[in-house]
């Protein structure tokens, strides 16, 4: 199983995504933006690829745009 990351362009995006996923009990974690994917110094969402579809659905419902990476 691979780990995935969602990187948002603003703090508000991460906060909203985290709230929405928590509300739907989708496991995810807020982490510092991984250096290999971005030079931003803010927050990103980390989750298991098994919940990728659920996370993407939630983000779509919330009209949140994110950049996804797999490790």
């Amino acid at each position: 199983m691979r780990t995935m990351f969602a990187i948002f362009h603003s703090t508000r995006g991460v906060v909203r995504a985290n709230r929405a996923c928590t509300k739907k009990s989708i496991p995810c974690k807020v982490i510092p933006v991984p250096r290999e994917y971005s030079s931003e110094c803010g927050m990103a969402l980390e989750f298991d690829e098994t919940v990728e579809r659920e996370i993407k659905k939630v983000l779509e419902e919330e009209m949140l745009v994110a950049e996804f990476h797999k490790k």
Partner: protein
Amino acid sequence: MKNTYFDNAATSFPKPPAVAEMITTYLNAVGGTYGRSAYQRVIDASSGVETVRDLMAEKLQVEHVEHVIFSFNATTAINTILSGLNLNNSHILISPLEHNAVTRPLEILRGKCGVTIDIMPHFPDGRIDIDNVKSMIRDTTKLVIVNHQSNVNGVIQPVDKVKNVVGGIPVLLDLAQSLGHIPVKLDEWNIDFAVFTGHKGLLGPSGTGGFFIRNPDLVDPLVAGGTGSRSESYEMPSFAPDKFEAGTPNIAGIYGLLGALKNPCKRQYKQQKYIELLDTISSCGFVKVLRATDKNDQGDLFSLVHHRYDCSHIASALYTKYAIETRSGLHCAPLAHTTLGTFPNGSVRFSLSPYHTDSDLDFLCNAIKKLEYI
């Protein structure tokens, strides 16, 4: 206990107890900055700030929450918009009751950028004469500025009608005195820019405020710096809210505002009682009351001018004899006082809080009635 504080247009008092509690909670327990790094304190602090942004969008009645920007007060917000719009050699229409928060930045633009300014036609109480606004519009008119509720006589302007008349010309609405007192519907009114403060009608702490911007692309940021986003670039992010929020925000203050927004005080005094107060004082015979001609246009503040004594003398007598706290002078609004015929002497202003009761208004009324001879 009597509430004799009638200077809520300067800053509100008292605040809901939750304001101090939330500030203390942030300072003593939450801690953490906004949007930089990702440990629990940062997540909690960032989430708190974003909750306030959600609540402010609700208060302003706007759909685009991310277009609600935090700044330290309404003045900084006005300066951001006026300096960030390209207004070179343009014509600007302003309402007749503007505050120096608008007229001073405009004066700078007049000197530096060749901006010309006209005051919209109006009635004696300063209410904009909608029917005659259209004739003031020029090809070069790029902005219309409206003070929603005067900080001198409390007149509420018909902003929706102004926007209808000026059409596509952007409108900047100053909500410093109105937000929290009267309903605001920025999307319905199609307002382009609106500035607000947290410490007046919203009953939050000073050092909080901000603005709504319908199209963030139209305005360059006033302050540049770190945002936690797009850190690889020397340029500011192009998207809101980050574009306008460089540097660490006033997180403690924003938490205080959260306490205020979640615990609003229902107005204790009756509108009828307020209008009776205005009518009684107006009929005293020894003062002129600065108020709206139509009671439906009256906000929660008014001023008076004594026929015999200057305004500072009246404010001092009210405080010494009755502990009534007011503000005398020009209220940083020389244009408004010029419009109302009270420049340069000014007036004594009384501004209400939702915490005032009918009995507080009776006390104020009786005190003013005794001021014929001091």
